[in-house]
């Protein structure tokens, strides 16, 4: 039973890390910078799940407010001071 539980945790970790790669890809190719910031926050959320499953709750607690709250907030305000669309 214990072995199955561990395997399931590793499986969730694998899926979450692949999804984070997808989020990174979307954040890079997206031309709308606001959407790119949201994809980046999504990737941070996946990383927070990974940290939690890797038994590092201290990192989760510092990663969630900084990477999902503070950085997207600051980036969105900075984008509002420049242009929203990335040029070719």
């Amino acid at each position, binding site marked *: 039973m214990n072995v199955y539980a561990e395997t399931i945790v590793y499986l969730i970790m694998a899926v979450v890390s*692949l999804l984070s790669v*997808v989020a990174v*890809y979307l954040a890079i*190719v997206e031309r709308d910078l606001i959407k790119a910031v949201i994809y980046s926050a999504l990737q941070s959320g996946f990383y927070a799940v990974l940290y939690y499953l890797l038994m590092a709750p*201290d990192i989760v607690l510092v990663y969630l*407010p900084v990477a999902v*709250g503070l950085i997207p907030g600051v980036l969105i305000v*900075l984008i*509002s001071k420049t242009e929203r669309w990335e040029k070719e």
Partner: protein
Amino acid sequence: MRRITELAVILSLVLGVSVLLVLAASILLPGIEVRQLAFFYLYTTINPWFQNYTVNSPEAVTAIVWDYRGLDTLFETSVFYLALIAGLALARGLFSETPQGSFNEKTHGLTTIVKTVTRVTAPMIIAVGASIGLHGHLTPGGGFQGGATIAVIPLVFIVVYSTLFLIARGVTSNKMLVLRSIGLLGIGFTSIAAFLIGLAIGRFAYVFQNMPKPGAVVGLPADINGALISGTLWFFNLFEMIAVAAGFTIAFIILLLAGRGGSGGR
């Protein structure tokens, strides 16, 4: 279609590297003898039968950050402080462009619904941040985590209520700098607290000492009236929380208050 192809290539590359890493793990993983240090930390972090070496904190990460490796964290905090000072120095000309006028509930900020929700959730976020920071020696968390959580509040208030609200409530960068300096002074005094006690009573003590050590019997109390504070750890977390929350607030004020478009949410 092109995006899906690119994504498939990237994902298969990641999966391939993962397979390679799994195969290499049998050779590359460090052996059991490397983990003696971790074993020592976990064995001594709270150990009533080992009084000369214990930290009396059930949270090993905070014990390592502020006791075993306290000097590293002190320098980390000062790096953050220097970065803020550099930011203030770069933004020194911008404060003349700070928006003038008084805050008006009806014309500034987002709608009433957003404002009410913010008003309800703000005390909760501050309470959660304070509990993360002040229970840092008991549960996962610590001063930086709690301070970063509290620092979300000024950002949300700037976006939802506009910057004039913060100015009207007296949250200025100078006041935050004072608060941050109080936090840093507190960290400095906590780091030499045991040393000062040792000087006062004429016994040998180390800088950054927490619990009594062999040859240096001076130490801070592990608990007050039965409530565990783990000596210096609680004070370090408290002052670090104040310093980090005030520091992030200064950064937001620099970034958002000054210049064009500073009156956010309008």
